[in-house]
């Protein structure tokens, strides 16, 4: 026993070292467990406070640009308003609209921190669980997809950017209907990679194709813009890999919308039930 104690005392530094390293690795590999989410939640809130403070100074330098983007969006929305449309029919039929039911709601938020220069990029938003944000909701700008909310504390949300090595979203080429998945190769924040199975798609020369989110995503509504490509960006070997130029400028997003899928819970329960019954 004495020997053991002297052994421990003599080499306590090595044990401390191993303990700290082990603890770090445990945190690193157990990202999604509850225990680390407690640590995570705390640090997310603290880091968020710091970013919010920094943003409160920094936002003044960007007022012009964020105003411009809001004006552009206002203009676009106004053109879509009914009052902006010319009604060229004499007949008006009143319909109580039971065909459409709200499936997605949008919650606006401001980006207070953003990175594009890492392999795993995140954005921080100034809205949190108090505004109804949860883990795993889609985030978009007016021009396209941004990411998925990953960590949510009371007042802040960390969004896993589309420029993250773990990000993957189901996408479709809106012109041809090919479905594949979009990931980021980590080289250039302006491009992502679309991978589609080799099903003889024919991409014509000199025409631009649009990539949008597919109906198979339970996070994003169908048809949220991701990016564009031409036939010159297509590489085919086993899988067809396409370099897609992103629509949204992820180096400088100002205002984003978090998308809540109201029917998602229901869809999930049905899917879980189905998978249980098969087993």
């Amino acid at each position: 026993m004495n020997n053991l104690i002297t052994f421990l005392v003599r080499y306590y530094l090595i044990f401390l070292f191993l303990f700290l390293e082990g603890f770090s690795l445990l945190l690193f590999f157990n990202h999604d467990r509850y225990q680390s989410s407690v640590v995570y939640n705390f640090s997310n809130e603290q880091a968020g406070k710091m970013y919010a403070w920094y943003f409160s100074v920094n936002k003044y330098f960007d007022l012009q640009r964020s105003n411009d983007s809001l004006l552009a969006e206002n203009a676009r929305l106004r053109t879509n308003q009914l009052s902006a449309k010319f009604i060229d029919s004499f007949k008006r039929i009143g319909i109580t609209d039971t065909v459409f039911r709200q499936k997605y709601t949008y919650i606006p938020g401001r980006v207070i921190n953003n990175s594009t220069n890492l392999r795993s990029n995140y954005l921080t938003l100034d809205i949190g669980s108090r505004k109804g944000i949860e883990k795993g909701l889609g985030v978009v700008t007016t021009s396209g997809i941004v990411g998925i909310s990953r960590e949510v504390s009371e007042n802040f949300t960390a969004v896993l950017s589309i420029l993250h090595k773990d990000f993957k979203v189901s996408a479709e080429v809106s012109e041809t209907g090919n479905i594949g998945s979009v990931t980021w190769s980590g080289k250039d924040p302006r491009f992502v990679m679309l991978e589609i199975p080799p099903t003889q798609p024919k991409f014509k020369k000199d025409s631009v194709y649009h990539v949008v989110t597919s109906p198979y995503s339970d996070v994003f509504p169908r048809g949220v813009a991701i990016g564009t490509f031409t036939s010159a960006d297509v590489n085919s070997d086993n899988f067809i890999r396409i370099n897609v130029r992103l629509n949204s400028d992820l180096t400088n997003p100002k205002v984003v919308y978090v998308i809540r899928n109201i029917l998602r819970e229901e869809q999930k329960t049905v899917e879980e039930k189905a998978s249980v019954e098969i087993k």
Partner: protein
Amino acid sequence: MAAQDYIKIALLYFLLLFVQVNVLNHLDFDVPFMALVHPMVVFYVIIIMPRMNEAAYLALAFCTGFFMDSFYHTQGLHSFGFVLIAFIRQPLLNYLKLNEEQRETALPHISFLGLRRFVIYSLLMSLTYHIFTVMLAVFSFQAFQSSLSRIFMSTLLSVFFFVVLDIIFFRKSQNAQ
């Protein structure tokens, strides 16, 4: 080592943390080989820390890494790297062949080690750090070339910053000697 110096190091520590989080983490070089490269200046305080209780030193390194992690959203990654370099520091300083007395009072500055030994020292420290953190973060040998260029460019850039910082903040002690 006067109390004054400890205060100086403590202030420098918070200054560098602030600069790291708010400025350097946002750097984005749009030139070949520099994608995803960003220098780690917080690291400087860890490598120049005067000799102290080794356990406290390891704990300090861990806390710093943990703090960085909360800003990068990589729980455990940077704390792993920081603890690792804190652990290899003493053997490394021994390797640089200081005599016994120097080892006791060792302050790893340019004024003390000389430029050549300081560069070797900080190069080895930050190379170890970047090799482990980059490979752990990527966790695959795909695109190994880009990982490799990230490791080397980050290391070189960090060492450059260390030398500049050391010349700015600790030149005085050279005059005193």
